[in-house]
């Protein structure tokens, strides 16, 4: 069969598919109604008691770290596994032998780009640190701050080349930091087990009310810093492994 005819056939099937979807959409509960079944089941409890139980005024952070802690610990393992997969397919960069695409490119980087990136990178990283540490009371958190850190490191690498960046983030520093999210999560979860409580319990009874809150807050900050640092460094490492060009 001709390729073009085949594509038209696929298009007709897709449009039929969309028509079926439209009938399903018309049957769905109306969007924006506070009385929808999705908004009445467990969510009122999250919104009413989330600050005391979850431990963060930003309910999303509370759900991620506390109510759905197992989910998030699985996810940090997923991004760590993605890094392992990328490194298994493409080797890690070698500072002495490899060069990045920027360094072998015949086009020189413009002065404007260099100056702006040099000026902005510390500010972006400062913003990311604020976002990681302030994630429980305002929008933000470990993943957001980590992604911003990774993006700024990538921008720095794209401007100054792999050598200049990797001299600042050496392999001996990066390898322990890449696993910090998983380690911080497991370590904070194990704290409760010393007191005979289930894994990933943050509110440990037996102390005064304020000490309890303080311990929970400290554990949250440890996890957030771990996730943020690990996400940023993992994105930078993936980029470095993909962006290198071997000399031979």
């Amino acid at each position, binding site marked *: 069969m001709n390729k073009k005819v085949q594509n038209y056939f696929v298009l007709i099937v897709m449009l039929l598919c969309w028509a079926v979807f439209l009938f399903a959409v018309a049957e769905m509960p109306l969007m924006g109604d506070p009385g929808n079944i*999705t*908004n009445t089941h467990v969510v009122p409890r999250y919104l009413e008691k989330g600050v005391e139980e979850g431990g963060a005024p930003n309910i999303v952070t509370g759900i991620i770290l506390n109510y759905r802690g197992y989910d998030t610990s699985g996810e940090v393992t997923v991004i760590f596994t993605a890094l392992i997969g990328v490194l298994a397919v493409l080797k890690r960069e070698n500072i002495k032998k490899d060069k990045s695409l920027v360094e072998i490119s015949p086009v020189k980087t413009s002065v404007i780009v260099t100056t702006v990136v040099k000026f902005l990178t510390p500010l972006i990283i400062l913003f990311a640190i604020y976002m990681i540490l302030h994630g429980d009371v305002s929008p933000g958190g470990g993943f957001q701050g980590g992604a911003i850190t990774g993006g700024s490191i990538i921008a720095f690498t794209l401007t100054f080349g792999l050598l200049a960046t990797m001299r600042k983030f050496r392999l001996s520093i990066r390898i322990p930091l890449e696993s910090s999210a998983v380690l911080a999560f497991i370590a904070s979860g194990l704290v409760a087990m010393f007191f005979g409580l289930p894994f990933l319990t943050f509110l440990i009874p037996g102390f005064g009310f304020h000490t309890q809150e303080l311990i929970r807050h400290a554990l949250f900050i440890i996890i957030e810093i771990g996730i943020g640092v690990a996400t940023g460094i993992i994105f930078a490492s993936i980029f470095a492994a993909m962006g290198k060009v071997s000399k031979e």
Partner: protein
Amino acid sequence: MTFLSKLGTNFNYVISTLLFVIGLYTIITKPNLIKKFMGLNIMETSVFLAIVSIGAVRDGKAPIVESATKVQYVNPLPQALILTGIVVAVSTTALALSLMIKLYEQCGTLNADKLKEFE
């Protein structure tokens, strides 16, 4: 309520299903692997849009509790689930793209039709 006015209220779902269909069409008809993966990313974001729209509430505030007064917040649960979803999506993209780089080094092509000839 008529069919069309319901679709008008649920407009986010309509767009989300349309994006899903466009992504699926890209995956099926385009031979290039990078293009296929862009289609997969579009499909992923369309599903995210549908799930977050389920939790949207008219005139709802972002779920950050600032005072004890009763305010209508949006549903925080889909947002927390999708936040993990976005990071998993970029992880799978990175892994697939690194496999494509290796494939191009070995075979010299990223066209799925031409890759059939290699065995």
